[in-house]
């Protein structure tokens, strides 16, 4: 989530008419530019992006660094090709544009699309690189299009003189079936740090792949990041729970069960497992149900006590979450009948604490117990989180 101001240097020279990248070099460049802009603004809403063209009559700044994505994309529309690319002037003017950015706290970055031959000498490029490094400007170079002797070496030399602590990157993209954007998604040029960049990258990768939904949980992180985050957290907790449960089953295969006291708990445990299994894998419900039954037989009361301890911890940490938990408990009961009633029961802390105190021989401080506790509230919490997200939507 680095706060960054970026200037994109677009090559609109005659060499961009070539069709070795389909449909044309210029088109793929435009796609890549929109991809980058999206990724940057996604990763941090205060990021700004600007565009300038390097060829044509001369270097021309189309947009100074702005966070308005629409303005940037409209600049790319209707660009004309012609002339020769002037790399040195383009970079220097980009640096000047960044110098006059509004928010001085932003890091400076220049992204250059170098598609045509480079007429500058290596020495001149190195001097420019040193100047950028001295002013702590990072540089990303996309080497595509025209392949000329010495062009990769010149660009590598430029990168070496700019590179400070691996902040700058270069990508060589030869002509191929894959679009330039697809190749770029996986490179460090565009994978921003954190969810924003990679989320956006995942989205566009999915779109490029032909509409196959590639999102982690069937939820677009762009549209609803909170929900996506909640689902991801619940998935991890579910995984942890399953691992813990598997461990438990292995350990307690030979342990004694509780008496009648444990029956209501085992039922509730069973139901909770059912509920969670429902969330994660609706297809194998019956198998999982049986598995959960077997599990809960082995570990009756300990689960509930664990659940309560963890739950109270959670509510102490986050008052809002506790409130949401209670509210969604009520919601949960509408969704499904028996399982959620029981999970509601499980969630009811006063009930849980009374049960725990009544259970002889259950030690809530036992690490095994605590493990299972982690799983129990994890599911209900994640369920609540999901409900919590859905609830505000409902209220709107």
């Amino acid at each position, binding site marked *: 989530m680095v706060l960054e101001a970026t200037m994109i240097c677009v090559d609109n020279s005659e060499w961009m008419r070539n069709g070795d990248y389909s449909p044309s070099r210029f088109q793929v460049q435009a796609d890549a530019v929109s991809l980058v802009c999206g990724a940057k603004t996604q990763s941090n809403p205060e990021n700004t992006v600007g565009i300038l063209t390097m060829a044509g009559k001369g270097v021309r700044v189309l947009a100074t660094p702005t966070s308005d994505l629409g303005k940037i994309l409209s600049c790319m529309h209707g660009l004309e090709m012609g002339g020769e690319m002037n790399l040195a002037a383009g970079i220097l003017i980009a640096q000047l544009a960044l110098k006059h950015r509004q928010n*001085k706290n932003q890091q400076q970055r220049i992204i250059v699309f170098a598609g045509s031959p480079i007429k500058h000498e290596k020495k001149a490029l190195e001097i420019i690189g040193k100047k950028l490094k*001295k002013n702590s400007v990072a540089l990303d170079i996309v080497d595509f299009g025209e392949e000329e002797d010495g062009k990769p070496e010149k660009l590598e030399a430029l990168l070496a003189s700019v590179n400070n602590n691996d902040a700058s990157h270069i990508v060589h993209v030869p002509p191929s079936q894959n679009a330039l954007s697809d190749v770029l998604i996986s490179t460090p040029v565009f994978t921003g740090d954190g969810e924003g960049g990679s989320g956006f990258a995942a989205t566009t990768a999915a779109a490029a792949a032909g509409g196959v939904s590639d999102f982690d949980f069937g939820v677009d992180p762009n549209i609803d990041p909170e929900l996506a985050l909640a689902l991801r957290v619940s998935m991890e907790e579910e995984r942890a729970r399953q691992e813990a449960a598997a461990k438990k089953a292995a350990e307690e295969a030979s342990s004694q069960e509780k008496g009648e006291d444990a029956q209501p708990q085992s039922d509730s445990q069973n139901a909770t497992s059912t509920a969670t299994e429902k969330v994660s894998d609706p297809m194998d419900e019956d198998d999982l149900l049986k598995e959960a039954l077997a599990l809960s037989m082995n570990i009756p009361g300990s689960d509930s006590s664990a659940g309560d301890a963890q739950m109270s911890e959670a509510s102490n940490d986050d008052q809002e979450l506790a409130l949401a938990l209670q509210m969604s408990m009520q919601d949960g009961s509408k969704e499904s009948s028996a399982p959620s009633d029981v999970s509601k029961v499980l969630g009811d802390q006063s009930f849980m604490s009374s049960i725990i105190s009544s259970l002889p021989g259950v030690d809530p401080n036992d690490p095994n117990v605590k493990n299972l506790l982690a799983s129990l509230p994890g599911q209900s919490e994640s369920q609540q989180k999901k409900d919590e997200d859905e609830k505000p939507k409902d209220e709107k």
Partner: protein
Amino acid sequence: MACTHDHSCEDHDCSSNWSLYKHIDLSKVTALNEANPGSVKSVFKAWEERLNSTGEHLESNEGDPELLVYIPFTSDVKIKSISIVGGADGTSPSKLRVFINREGIDFSDAQSMQPVQEWDLVENLHGVLEYQTRYSKFQSVANITLHFPESFGGDTTQIHYIGFKGEATQLKRDVVATIVYEITPNPSDHKTRAETGGGLSHVE
């Protein structure tokens, strides 16, 4: 620890005079043309440790002795004098130009702008020299930028210690930070009390 001053130090504690380093907002200190990013923070320490060169020091990039250091303070300060301890073998800075209360200065700005004050430095390996400021110009300093344009012939410029003598006021300069506003308000974030129960309604 001996003060290496001409006067005797038993009467007063020299180090307390150089205590403005406590008012430096270290997290926001930046430098341009430093060889190791972040090494600039190591030059701000207590007076007693100024000769302690076992830690990191600030060094400029190879072949380019120019350095620019931006130092914000946590409250407005008055600076009476500045002390710089450089490196050996010609790597000490030879000139110092300072700018006050300007953010985002880079090398081209620093070279073209008129500084608030500039000094010709000497090699000050023991940190006994201090450079007086024109006190009237340094009355409410929220941040200061130090520009070292050249060294004493060395390939790089090294700085081991930068100290400020003066006093700190409790005031803070007014700053309007860059704020991101809501583009589309979310009604559920702005519940009025009327919706949640009785009482005077107000938007939260």
